[in-house]
């Protein structure tokens, strides 16, 4: 205790804001709990939103290609329309194009081989001989596997409701189940991860895909991937293709392709709005809590602040004290909120298999929000200082 006093004494000036805040420990703790709660709320909401947007594009990021063709009616992976693969072949005529490859996506019912319950799974069909996907564990020998009829690869990070597929495979057990109305064998595992749109993913060849979805006509594809020769700038090519290809296909650069998916989730669904609202709620709760603390503090010390004015302290000094208290509250509330949020992210990631983790940008963003939260409260609370009239204290 005494050493703490000594530290305060050596200070150039008496740290009044700090001493006023820390004098009543219980009140400070309650205040910090409130601010931490507001920060955690913002961390969780922003974390979920980022996770949603990041998980939504996992498949996009894994696709190796510079230019992508989609139907003009396609909005997102969960809402794709097909277009004629002739358009994709037409792009071969552009200078700089090295290879093209069609990708088929769709949702089918997967039967859990253990419980026999069905659940909708994301099915991806690619040409197994094309070098198209950059995913962990997706080795060439596994792509060989799906050349066989009715063999699929299973995403080991699919939700557990699809069955203990990774465990069974790793223990050497043969996994046979049904997708759509077709009997398939799981020939191996790869790693991608669940998204908000898809709880699980299987990967197979284009031919197997069409066996699972017999109603899908040949020659109609969901995504056309265009790979360019090394060193070719994709942007002029995108413009050329747009000018020359008919209106029944959309030409997207890699960034636009990713952006299409994120925009769908952020703006085309209620999800972006809900998370945004959550952040605003956290922010407002924080403002109210900090305002309460600062207002009470100024009111409790009104006579003392008036005395300081009488002694010759300026209004600016007292404003400074209130704002310093605001900043201290923001900082002290943020630290436990940060630590708890890291923990909560970890719990959430394990429970949902969504990619949710603390990022530097979000840490800075929430710190900025916490500081502005406390500043707004401070700006409202200092109006109370006007009541500190030095002429009233005699």
């Amino acid at each position, binding site marked *: 205790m*005494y050493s703490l*006093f000594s530290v*305060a*004494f*050596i*200070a*150039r*000036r*008496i740290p*009044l804001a700090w*001493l*006023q805040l*820390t*004098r009543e420990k219980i009140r400070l703790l309650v205040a910090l709990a409130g601010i931490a709660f507001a920060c955690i709320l913002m961390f969780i909401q922003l974390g979920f939103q980022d996770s949603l947007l990041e998980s939504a594009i996992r498949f996009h990021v894994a696709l190796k290609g510079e230019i992508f063709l989609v139907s003009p009616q396609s909005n997102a992976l969960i809402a794709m329309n097909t277009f004629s693969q002739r358009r994709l072949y037409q792009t071969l005529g552009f200078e700089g194009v090295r290879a093209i490859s069609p990708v088929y996506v769709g949702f089918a019912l997967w039967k859990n081989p253990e419980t026999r319950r069905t659940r909708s799974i994301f099915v991806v069909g690619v040409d197994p001989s094309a070098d198209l996907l950059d995913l962990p564990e997706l080795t060439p020998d596994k792509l060989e596997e799906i050349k066989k009829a009715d063999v699929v690869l299973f995403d080991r990070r699919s939700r557990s409701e699809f069955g203990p597929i990774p465990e069974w495979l790793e223990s050497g057990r043969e996994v046979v189940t049904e997708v759509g109305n077709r009997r398939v064998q799981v020939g191996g595992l790869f790693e991608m991860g669940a998204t908000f749109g898809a709880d699980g993913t299987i990967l197979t060849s284009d031919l197997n895909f069409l066996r699972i979805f017999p109603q899908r006509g040949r020659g109609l594809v969901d995504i056309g991937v265009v790979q360019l020769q090394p060193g070719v700038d994709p942007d002029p090519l995108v413009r050329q293709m747009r000018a020359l290809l008919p209106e029944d296909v959309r030409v997207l650069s890699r960034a636009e392709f990713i952006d299409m998916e994120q925009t769908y989730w952020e703006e085309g669904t209620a999800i972006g709005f809900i998370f945004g609202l959550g952040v605003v709620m956290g922010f407002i709760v924080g403002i109210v809590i900090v305002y309460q603390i600062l207002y009470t503090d100024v009111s409790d*010390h009104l*006579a*003392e602040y*008036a*005395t*300081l*004015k*009488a*002694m*010759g*302290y*300026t209004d600016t000094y007292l404003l400074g004290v209130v704002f310093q208290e605001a900043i201290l509250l923001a900082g002290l509330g943020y630290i436990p909120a940060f630590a708890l949020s890291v923990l909560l992210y970890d719990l959430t990631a394990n429970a949902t298999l969504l990619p949710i983790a603390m990022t530097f940008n979000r840490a800075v963003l929430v710190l900025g929000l916490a500081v502005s939260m406390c500043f707004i409260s401070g700006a409202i609370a200092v109006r109370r200082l006007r009541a500190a009239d*030095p*002429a009233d*204290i*005699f």
Partner: protein
Amino acid sequence: MLTPLLDQAALTSAQNAVEPVVKAEGVNHYFGEGSLRKQILFDINFVLQPGEIVLLTGPSGSGKTTLLTLLGALRSVQEGSLQVLGQELRGAQPSTLIQIRRQVGYIFQAHNLLRSLTAAQNVRMALELHNGLAPQQVQQRAEEMLAAVGLGDRVHSYPEQLSGGQKQRVAIARALVSHPKLVLADEPTAALDSKSGREVVTLMEKLAREQGCTILMVTHDNRILDIADRVLHMEDGRLESQAVA
């Protein structure tokens, strides 16, 4: 003992050494606006010389406190001329008023100490208004001042750990630590029992004599009239001078 501070307060008062500390001429003061306007002070004229201890007595509502707040630059002067430490307060800029406040020591009826600060920190708050002292010096001077008011062993105590008389002595230490040329006190003994009240007043007198500062003290307490050089009496906003018997 305590050495004078080489700050603006000391310099200003050195230049005005022969001038009176306070000079009031025809000061009138009103509260309220329009038809509610009520005159509180009527044609106040008086002078306080350096080193004087002057008591201001009078019934409640006679305007004593209003006069005190005018002298302390806590309220603007409306009519007449009021010079404090050589500065005209009427029409003075807010920055001038703040400068005057820093050169005046205030002792209140309630001690008005900062509850979050120790005795020494409270005293330091007054010293930190004046630049040019190293933090160690500030701390040393605060502790010396507390020792001078008999609280050398309570420097690290918080106000809530001190008795009423001790708190008022901390307030005196805070008012006098920067060696003001003028101390304004508003019934400093009102909240104290007669013994502590007497101690507090004796202490103020002793320190004021040592530092040569002028004290204007509002009081109802007849037992302490003996410390005064002069007594001013106020009645219905008018000042009547009385010599000490």
